[in-house]
């Protein structure tokens, strides 16, 4: 059946919103800006729902051709869209969670002087993200990929007058460039060998290749290069360093871009290319190892952070590691499943954290919070749900997806499972630590401030008692809380996996056997136990005996110092990469090439011209008779030359 779903509307609607707000927003009222900023992404969400509704009645994968783009010889790239189960899931997550975060932003950003600019960027981000998700070829995907990077840069540096925000934006952009470099080379390899970037065309040619036939090495190279790109965008070791700094952006941005959607683009890309990865076991192993290490590594840093958003940032990095672990063991649907549930609960965590920050007047240090439970009960409730979800307590969303991943990891290699389970324990611990530090105990913040701005001034100095956020912020929290609670239920009986089966094929058919069923239950029990252990430990340390953590930290000494300082990775990068680059650029490129070669060439040429002119200008005396003399002399020289020519001949 050939139906037109008009997929192009979905990315174009937010683009229209961005254009309207971008060009007219400055002169419009906040209400008008909010209307435009909400209606367009909302319409995109509605259209995505419509597409989901009509989903069963179209032939899959559904492709929609919009316009020519590049035609060069037999190489062609079009503006065309691609819809299958995978992109549908991404589509709904991006538009759904994205729309909720837009709604939340109305409340959160209301007092910001650049209100319109925020919504312009946010809508622009939606456009690029949806392009990325819906593209039917790697190049269009890459456009979206770069576009979300741009939007991310703009939004991290949203408060660009703050130096730290501006440099965090730059850091994110530059680190992402490194990953994109790998991605691009991967694309070049694909063009070189498959003469197309079209998903269906490439995968058609990849399908017959197996690890024994020729081309397997090529697929490994492509896979690893694509993974380099994914490492940049999805903040994996060694390119994760930008994500924690990205928390300089407004909190809704952290929720939308740096938790729910953009950072999962790498997972999506790897899953989209699963045919390549499945045929390149080495690349898959690399993905799995990077994912596992990142999950553990980031989680340990998360324990020591005191900035509420930094904890969540490291948690995001760690959870993304889980998703890559899933992809790396070939369980792509589990990775996408975790991507979806993570979008719900991590988006919720960030929004709730934003609500907390809003409540305490811009404070982000958890040590200055505490006891907020009674001040902001709704935020506490929703954040509690999200914490339970991410910790993997059944039956919340995180439990189902995390369990799925751990189970698949165990089937691949028990080491993955061990590290994954330890990470789950640490995750549970630091999340409950966050919850307890923020909502339990006594309030440590400044209570009353003389020049509090009254109603809803945030981001400024303290403003009285912590207060609950307005409804426009709470409603998205509640919806996401519901999703975080029930979102995992689609995974029961492998329902989600079956839904994605047309895309990924049947994974590990041998896993559906009687004997392994018991193992699955056992593993499930152990991971739940681990999560509960994390909860209990966090309770003991931060509620029952709040003096203990400092003692433990002291007894660990330099190790604790190292973790607190994020293992000095930033310092290491600064020494190993940034400083040589800056020094080299300064001494060789700037002082050497630019000043000595380029500038001096130009200056010398100018100086030479000036000296010659200095001498020659005396000829132009204004004396008519001397001019006539020059003319006569010139004529004489010419005649002499002509005579000489005649004689010479």
């Amino acid at each position, binding site marked *: 059946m050939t139906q037109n779903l008009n997929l192009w509307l979905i990315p174009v609607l937010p683009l229209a919103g961005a254009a309207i707000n971008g060009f007219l927003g400055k002169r419009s009222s906040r209400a008008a800006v909010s209307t435009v900023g909400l209606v367009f992404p909302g319409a995109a969400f509605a259209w995505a729902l419509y597409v989901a509704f009509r989903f069963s009645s179209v032939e899959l994968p559904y492709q929609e051709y919009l316009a020519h783009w590049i035609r060069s010889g037999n190489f062609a790239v079009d503006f065309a869209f691609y819809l299958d189960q995978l992109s549908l899931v991404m589509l709904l997550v991006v538009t759904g969670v994205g729309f909720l975060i837009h709604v939340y932003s109305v409340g959160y950003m209301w007092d910001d002087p650049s209100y319109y600019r925020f919504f312009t960027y946010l809508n622009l981000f939606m456009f690029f993200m949806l392009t990325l998700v819906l593209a039917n070829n790697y190049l269009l995907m890459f456009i979206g990929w770069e576009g979300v990077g741009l939007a991310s840069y703009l939004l991290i540096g949203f408060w660009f007058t703050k130096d730290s925000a501006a440099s965090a934006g730059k850091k994110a952009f530059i680190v992402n460039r490194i990953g994109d470099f790998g991605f691009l080379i991967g694309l070049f390899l694909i063009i070189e060998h498959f003469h197309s970037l079209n998903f269906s065309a490439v995968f058609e040619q990849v399908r017959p290749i197996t690890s024994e036939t020729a081309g397997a090495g090529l697929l490994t190279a492509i896979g690893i290069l694509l993974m380099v790109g994914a490492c940049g965008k999805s903040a994996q070791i060694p390119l994760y360093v930008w994500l924690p700094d990205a928390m300089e952006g407004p909190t809704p941005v952290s929720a939308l871009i740096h938790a729910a959607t953009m950072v999962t683009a790498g997972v999506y890309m790897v899953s989209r290319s699963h045919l390549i990865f499945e045929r390149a076991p080495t690349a898959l192993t690399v993905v799995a190892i990077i994912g596992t290490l990142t999950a553990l590594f980031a989680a340990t840093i998360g324990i020591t952070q005191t900035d509420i958003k930094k904890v969540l940032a490291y948690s995001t990095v760690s959870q993304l590691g889980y998703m890559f672990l899933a992809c790396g063991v070939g369980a792509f649907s589990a990775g996408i499943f975790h991507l979806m549930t993570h979008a719900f609960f991590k988006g919720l965590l960030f929004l709730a954290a934003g609500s907390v920050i809003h409540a305490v007047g811009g404070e982000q240090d958890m040590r200055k919070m505490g006891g907020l439970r009674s001040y902001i009960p709704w935020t506490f409730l929703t954040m509690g749900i999200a914490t339970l979800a991410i910790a993997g307590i059944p039956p919340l969303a995180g439990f189902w997806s995390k369990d799925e991943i751990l189970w698949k990891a165990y089937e691949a290699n028990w080491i993955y499972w061990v590290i994954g389970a330890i990470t789950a324990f640490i995750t549970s611990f630091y999340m409950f630590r966050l919850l307890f530090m923020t909502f339990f105990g006594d309030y440590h913040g400044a209570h009353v401030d003389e020049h509090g701005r009254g109603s809803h001034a945030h981001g400024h100095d303290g403003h009285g008692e912590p207060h609950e956020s307005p409804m426009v912020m709470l409603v998205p929290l509640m919806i996401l809380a519901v999703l975080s609670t029930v979102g995992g239920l689609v995974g029961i009986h492998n329902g989600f996996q079956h839904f994605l089966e047309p895309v990924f094929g049947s994974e590990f058919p041998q896993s559906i056997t009687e004997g392994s069923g018991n193992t699955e239950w056992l593993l499930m029990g152990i991971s739940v136990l681990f999560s509960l252990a994390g909860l209990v430990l966090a309770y003991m340390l931060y509620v029952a005996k709040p003096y203990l953590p400092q003692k433990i930290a002291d007894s660990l000494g330099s190790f604790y110092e190292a973790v607190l300082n994020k293992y000095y990775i930033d310092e290491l990068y600064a020494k190993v990469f940034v400083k040589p680059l800056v020094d080299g650029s300064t001494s060789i490129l700037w002082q050497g090439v630019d000043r000595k070669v380029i500038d001096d060439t130009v200056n010398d040429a100018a100086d030479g011209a000036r000296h010659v002119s200095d001498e020659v200008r005396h000829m132009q005396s*204004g*004396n*008519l*008779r001397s001019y*006539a*003399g020059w003319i*006569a002399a010139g004529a004489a020289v010419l005649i002499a030359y002509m005579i000489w020519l005649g004689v010479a001949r």
Partner: protein
Amino acid sequence: MVPLSYYLVLSGILFACGVTGFLIKRNIITIFMSIELMLNGVNLSFVAFAAHWHVLAGQVFVFFVMVVAAAEAAVGLAIIIAVYRTRETLNVDQVNLLKL
């Protein structure tokens, strides 16, 4: 029959005299006459070539030059008289400004 080269040498001498006079004289009328001398030097070479090659074009050119020279003399002398009336000098070095 006088050879062509004689005429040409005489023509060159006349022209050179004109150039020299133009360059070194200060009196505007002398300069004017030097210009006439150059023109006539050229005229001489024209007619010499015309006679030598039996081509009339050279003589036709000479008529043109004479006409232009006559016109120039008329206009030039008028200007010189006007300049003398206002500046009371014929020294070109003192007439190097266009405004009064």
